[in-house]
Each structure stands twice: as structure tokens, then as C-alpha cells.
């Protein structure tokens, strides 16, 4: 199969199938409803299941149930819908089950709008629900990358027995771009009989798997949280991904930006280069774990005088950047949060104010 022109939402749906995921539960919401529309046709073709829940809360527990039974499962939603799922996500984290969540972000708070946004950064990177927990969060900047990240998300979720989120925005969902699908994933979670409720034959074994997030014994609960913490530490060591752009130049300003916004920044950086201004970019591909060391090194580079976070939120990523920069230079913010994607010209203006 060569390149095909596909809408982000449809490509995400197809990617999940090619990742071997045959279980999809969802509730429609703009700007990601095409995923459900596509899978309502496609899942029956491949012998899979698409069930529309009565609400996103219900969906999150359908995901929990399938994941607890050892099935590959995913859902897609957009900001307000993800908030409703947050309870189930917390349970899934606590019970250490693998599942994939896709958030095609729209503006908030509340119902907000339906246009692109990145205002769920804190929600996504801080675990979404209650308790000590995180999701591993991948942030695509193109339809191709959304496909690749969805396909990577399933093995990552299984490696850590923890939910993984693909954090896109309305533009990624609605835009059409050429995509080339990677080969089908052949892998199966190998260890699921060790933990999942797979209906083991009790005549052959008296081993009993129990999936739960309730630990009334404080020592056990503390141990469960320590186990989660160890997983997040391991993610920080093994899963950090980022891209650098124009960082070989002698830049005075370093931009940190992810997803759709980072593409606009790349164009702005090219245009600034033509005007004789060098600007570097670090683009997190994982926003949790955040590429702390890469941002730290790029900000500490000789000549770098300021770091600019460019995001479609009111500066939610600034905390992570400041934590990474550790005071080597000031961290500024530029962004918009109403659904308009800032233009390269607007990013250029924001950069020039720092020069």
C-alpha cells in the first residue's frame, strides 16, 4: 500500500486496526467523530467490536473491562469527553491495565469551542484523574505521525500496563495529509495470563487473577503507588522522545512547542532565518515524560538568552519548561486559546519581542 490521502481522524481509526486493536468504545464529539464513523463501518469488516456508550463515563469503564480481560482496546474523544472519562482512567491506572486514549483537543474550559486547542496539556500530563498516576502521552504534529503514534501506543501501554494517550488537536483530526501505514503489528501482549482475567481453567491451575484499584490495606496501597512510581521513572529513562530543529545554529531564542503549533513554529523559524535571525526549536514528541534534558541542554547553549513556549493554551507547558531550564534563562510564553491557530507571522512577532 502506497501513500493515501486521509483525514487525521480516519487515519487514527485505521491505525488502531492495524495495531491489532479490535475493541473500540466511544461516544461522539466534535472534532473527532469521524473516528467513530469510520470504525462503525470498519470494525465489523475485521471482526471487531464498536460499541457506542451511553456516555463517556460508561465508555471509560467499557475500556477498563476489556483491558482487564487482556484485550487490546482504545477510545477516542475530545476535551470535555476526556474529562468525563477521567474517573475510569484513574481506575485503569490504579489497576495497572493497558489501554489507549486519543484526545483530539478542542478549546475549553467547559464546552469551550470545537476548534483546535492544546489546553488539556496539564490534564494529560498530570494523570487526568485523581490519585498518583500518569499516562504516557504522545503528541503528533501530522497525520502520518498520528498514525505511527497510535500504532506505538498499544505496545507501550502493554509494556507498562498503563494507559497511553495520543494527544492531538482539532487540526490533526480534521486535516487530510498523505499517509503511509506501517506494517500490521504482529505482537500480542505475552504476559497477560499473569495478570488479566482471561478465564483460566481452574481445574488445571488454582492461580486466580484479580484486577482492582481498591486496596484497603494501607501498606498494599502504598506498594501499589510505589509500583506506579517505578513505572513512571522507567518511562522517564526509556521513552522520552523529541525532535530538534535549527539547534545547530547560534540562536538567541529557543522555542519549545509541540503538535500542530510546532509546525507553525518551524515555518516561523525558516522565515526568521531568511531575515537573519537564528531561532532553535525543541519539539517534545512525548509530553509525559517531558524531554527535560534536551530542553535543559538547548536552553543552556552559549548565546541562548530566552526560551519561548508557544502553545495553544495559556502557558500550561511553561512549568515543565522552567523545571527543565532550571533558571539558565527566562522562560516566556506566547499562544492563543480560542481555536485560532497562531500564524507564523504572529510567532515571529512574539520572538522578535524577546530580541
Amino acid at each position: 500500500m502506497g501513500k493515501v490521502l486521509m483525514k487525521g481522524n480516519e487515519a487514527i481509526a485505521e491505525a488502531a486496526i492495524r495495531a491489532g486493536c479490535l475493541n473500540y468504545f466511544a461516544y461522539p464529539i466534535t472534532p473527532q467523530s469521524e473516528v467513530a464513523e469510520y470504525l462503525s463501518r470498519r470494525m465489523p469488516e475485521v471482526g471487531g467490536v464498536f460499541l457506542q456508550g451511553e456516555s463517556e463515563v460508561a465508555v471509560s469503564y467499557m475500556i477498563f473491562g476489556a483491558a482487564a480481560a487482556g484485550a487490546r482496546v482504545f477510545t477516542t474523544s475530545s476535551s470535555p469527553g476526556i474529562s468525563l472519562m477521567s474517573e475510569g482512567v484513574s481506575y485503569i491506572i490504579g489497576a495497572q491495565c493497558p489501554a489507549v486514549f486519543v484526545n483530539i483537543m478542542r478549546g475549553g474550559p467547559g464546552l469551550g469551542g470545537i476548534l483546535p486547542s492544546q489546553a488539556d496539556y496539564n490534564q494529560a500530563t498530570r494523570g487526568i484523574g485523581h490519585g498518583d498516576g500518569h499516562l504516557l502521552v504522545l503528541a503528533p504534529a501530522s497525520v502520518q505521525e498520528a498514525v505511527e503514534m497510535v500504532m506505538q501506543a498499544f505496545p507501550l501501554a502493554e509494556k507498562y500496563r498503563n494507559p497511553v494517550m495520543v494527544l492531538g488537536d482539532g487540526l490533526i483530526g480534521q486535516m487530510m495529509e498523505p499517509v503511509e501505514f506501517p506494517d500490521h503489528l504482529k505482537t500480542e501482549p505475552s504476559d497477560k495470563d499473569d495478570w488479566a482475567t482471561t478465564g483460566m481453567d481452574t481445574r488445571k491451575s488454582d492461580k486466580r487473577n484479580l484486577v482492582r484499584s481498591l486496596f484497603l490495606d494501607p501498606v498494599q496501597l502504598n506498594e501499589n503507588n510505589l509500583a506506579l512510581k517505578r513505572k513512571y521513572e522507567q518511562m522517564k529513562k526509556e521513552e522520552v522522545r523529541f525532535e530538534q530543529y535549527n539547534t545547530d545554529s547560534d540562536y538567541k531564542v529557543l522555542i519549545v512547542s509541540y503538535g500542530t503549533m510546532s509546525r507553525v513554529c518551524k515555518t516561523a523559524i525558516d522565515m526568521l532565518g531568511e531575515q537573519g535571525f537564528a531561532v532553535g526549536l525543541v519539539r517534545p514528541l512525548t509530553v509525559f515524560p517531558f524531554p527535560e534534558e534536551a530542553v535543559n541542554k538547548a536552553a543552556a547553549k552559549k548565546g541562548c538568552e530566552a526560551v519561548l513556549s508557544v502553545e495553544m493554551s495559556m502557558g500550561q507547558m511553561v512549568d515543565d519548561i522552567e523545571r527543565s531550564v532550571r533558571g539558565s534563562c527566562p522562560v516566556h510564553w506566547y499562544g492563543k486559546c480560542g481555536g485560532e491557530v497562531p500564524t507564523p507571522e504572529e510567532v515571529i512577532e512574539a520572538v522578535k519581542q524577546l530580541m
Partner: protein
Amino acid sequence: MQSEVMFAGFGGQGILLIGKILAHAAMEEGFEVAWIPSYGPEMRGGTAYCTVVISDRPIGSPIIKNPLHLVAMNRPSLEKFAPAVKPNGVILVNSSLIDIDCGRQDVDELRVPVVDIAQKIGNPRAANIVALAAFVARSRIVSIDTLKKCVEHEFQKKAKLIPLNLKAVEEGVKAAG
């Protein structure tokens, strides 16, 4: 080299579809492409538009404020978007529905009565394909052969519409002069 084409008109005129066909044709010719729809809370009968970005290198910002070209299928979209078009671009005006000109001296204005032409060949709903073909012929953004292949591909599931739409391509090319 990057060019951007904005297609705009009423909802129902097949605006998003012709943008998609152009994006597909450009992809077939080896270009990087992005198709960006308007998906705001539009009114029924309100404006629909999409932008197609075509480039010989990876596309950075897909958000385009000033497109190189415009295909305007109704008057509100001509009035709204003509001032944003870059100098030397093509503005295709659907003169069946638009009785004003684009008001720009620094662009190549091509007036084509696309609805009348489509009516003449049997179906006014093919007006969008007439407009797309006339625009492609004037801008030479992709070849007419590739365009025809992609029109056929688009209608492969409704094969009985293929002859009409290929005729629409021919008439559009002719109208572009």
C-alpha cells in the same frame, strides 16, 4: 516552492470535495499536500471553505492567511477572501452567481459561468468540477491528465457519474481558454 489554494462557496456546492481532488492530484504528482477544512459551527447555507497547501518540501504551517489562489463559488466568499489573495495568484470567479469582479488589478481573474456550463452538459451539480478544471488549466498547478484520473478515482463508487464529471473537466479546461 509552495502554493496554497482556497476553495470557498456555499455549503452544498461541493467545495470540500474539489479541494480534496486537487490535494489528491498533487499527491499523485509527488508533492507534499495538506487539506484543511473549515469545520466551525457554520450555518446551513453559510460559507464553506477549505485550503489546499501544495509544496515540494514538508509543509510547516498548514494555517494559511494569504493563499496564492482562490476559487470563489459565491459572492460572499469572493468578497471575504479576494483581498487576502497574494499578488499574481489566480482568482476563479463563478460568474453564474457572482455579478461583481474581484476588485484586484494584481491577480489573474478568471471568470467562468460554471453553473451554466454544468447545466449545459446535463447536471448543475457538476459546477464544482468545471470550476476545479478551469482553475487547474489556468494555474497549471497539476496536469489535466492527473486531474482526470483523480476525478475518476473520486467517483469510482458512483461510476455512472464518471462520464458527466470527465465532461465537466473538459468543459472547464475549454472555458479557461
